[in-house]
């Protein structure tokens, strides 16, 4: 039931997107990237991202058979970028989803209940906030052992407090409204009011934040991968590709720059959409 409310809020947020050209531009960019990464490998005639081809190593952009060139081992760069995108997108969106569900719930409980519960939750959040995002993700990921699931969880440690803080602020505002008082006067209990009144209104406030947060999560994931502590090979990820391209930066800069471009454009799209939505709200 709550999931349905959440979906409804999401649709309402998306429907409110201004129909300006810029919005459509960035939405199209995102759609293109997502389609390319998740669907592309099935549709396009691409070689496997792990297929080495030493004869054609370090091929530049536009080479026959390898539209975006190859890396030092002759692996097709376009294929690796698309598969890498899957990882980056999945991890980031997954981490933000965790943040929204866990952090959102914690924040709403803290904001609505107040008192001791709020104090406890807020202190815990303060502790988590003391760790810089990447550092936290680093240590959690490395000690859980690198895998897609663990990296997502690790970045979740960052998104949960971020969202909890937002949700708490939202709940503090919403609970002062008279419709909440009215529901309480009708005899609605704490959980009822929290789920049916506070939650939908707070969700509305914080969903726009998801976009910007996904952008941040992507940067963290890329950073983790760049340091070699993210999702392990053979699964490629954009950060990983850039790290590997670093060695050949003088001879074949495109190996690092192509995935870099993918990363940049995707993050910019999320950031921009998030900003537009927030400007609309405020």
């Amino acid at each position, binding site marked *: 039931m709550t999931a349905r409310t959440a979906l409804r809020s999401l649709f309402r947020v998306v429907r409110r997107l201004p129909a300006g050209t810029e919005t459509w531009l960035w939405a199209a960019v995102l759609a293109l990237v997502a389609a390319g990464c998740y669907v592309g490998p099935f549709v396009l005639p691409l070689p496997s991202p792990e297929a080495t081809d030493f004869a054609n190593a370090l091929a530049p952009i536009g080479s026959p058979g390898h539209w975006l060139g190859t890396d030092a081992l002759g692996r097709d760069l376009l294929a690796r970028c698309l598969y890498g995108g899957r990882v980056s997108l999945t991890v980031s969106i997954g981490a933000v989803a965790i943040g929204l569900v866990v952090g959102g719930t914690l924040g709403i409980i803290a904001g609505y209940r107040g008192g001791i519960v709020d104090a406890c939750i807020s202190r815990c959040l303060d502790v988590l906030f003391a760790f810089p995002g990447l550092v936290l993700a680093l240590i959690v990921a490395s000690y859980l052992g690198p895998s897609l699931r663990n990296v997502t969880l690790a970045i979740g440690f960052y998104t949960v407090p971020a969202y909890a803080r937002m949700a708490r602020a939202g709940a503090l505002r919403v609970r002062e409204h*008279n*419709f909440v*008082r009215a*529901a309480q*006067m*009708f*005899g609605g209990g704490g959980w009822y009011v929290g789920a049916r009144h506070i939650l939908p209104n707070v969700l509305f406030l914080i969903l726009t934040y998801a976009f910007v947060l996904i952008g941040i999560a992507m940067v963290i994931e890329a950073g983790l991968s760049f340091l070699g502590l993210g999702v392990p090979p053979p699964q490629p990820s954009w950060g990983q590709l850039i790290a590997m391209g670093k060695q050949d930066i003088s001879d074949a800069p495109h190996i690092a720059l192509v995935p870099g471009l993918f990363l940049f454009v995707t993050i910019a799209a999320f950031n921009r959409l998030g900003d537009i939505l927030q400007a609309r709200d405020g």
Partner: protein
Amino acid sequence: MHAETGVVDPLLEARALTQVFRLPAMLPFRPPRVVHAVSEVSFTLAPGACLGLVGETGCGKSTLARSIMQAPPPAAGDVLFQGQSLVTADRETRRALRRQMQYVFQDPFASLDPTWRIADLVAEPLRIAGWDGPRARVRTEEVLLAVGIDPIRYGARRPREVSGGQCQRIAVARALALSPALLICDEVVSGLDVSIQAQLLNLFVELRRSFGLAYLFISHDLGVVRHLSDRVAVMYLGRIVEIGPSDALYRRPRHPYTAALLGAVPSVSRGEAARRRLRVKLTGELPSPLAPPSGCRFRTRCPRAEARCAAETPSLLADTAGHAVACHFPLADAASADQPRPTLSLSPTRP
């Protein structure tokens, strides 16, 4: 209703109702600051009657209304509804009694959840009370029609899609859903256009006639209150300073504060202006409820104040017509020769 005397038991009775708020102290190790929002307020309300409650912003009207609803419960005093004490009742009784009293808020948009549909909003009290879907739907349509909103056209809409006046009607419909005996209206017409105000007031009159509703009608607007109320109570800084039949209160106010308030009301009728010979001019500013003046709280602004007013708190004394005033030097009117005599005792153990 007493068979012998024919006197009707009051629907609502407030006894020495007191409400305070505690604010944290400014500096550590100091005692917390206390806001005396409502101090020893007592009144009765008969079934089907309408009591208007007027006063300046900040005099405690809304706080009083909320204490009656036990949201939050008063710090001291008692509230009796249909003869039963709300303060000492157990949760079940309190919940059952509270369903008979409904509250309508001031800002119509703020009191309706913007993410809900109108039909669901009106049905909410029913669903919380355990009504099943079909029964609730039927009742929802009934009450929406009663307030003049077409359930078919508006049922699926959201509050943002209707006007302020319609929203307020929807809020009233929601309040009527459980067939309450008492409706507490807190500044429900403030902030609406005058024409919409008039429509809404007429609706209240009609609802009263159809359903026998009693009202506690709170407003800072004296003109609005007069239209609807049988009796009016005037509040100042947490106390009732005057209470009585609305005609008597408006024509012959006995408390200087009431007279001052009325003096500020533009009136078209020349007869009244002539009768209002004593014009009371207010001086000074509203004192803070953190530190209300001793004795009579109005004395700092009252042009008739004397030493006795600071030393002794005046109690509400009524004349034979049920018009009570809390003042040591009430405005005498040439027409009334009645002497005030004590009627209302303020102790909770009233026989």
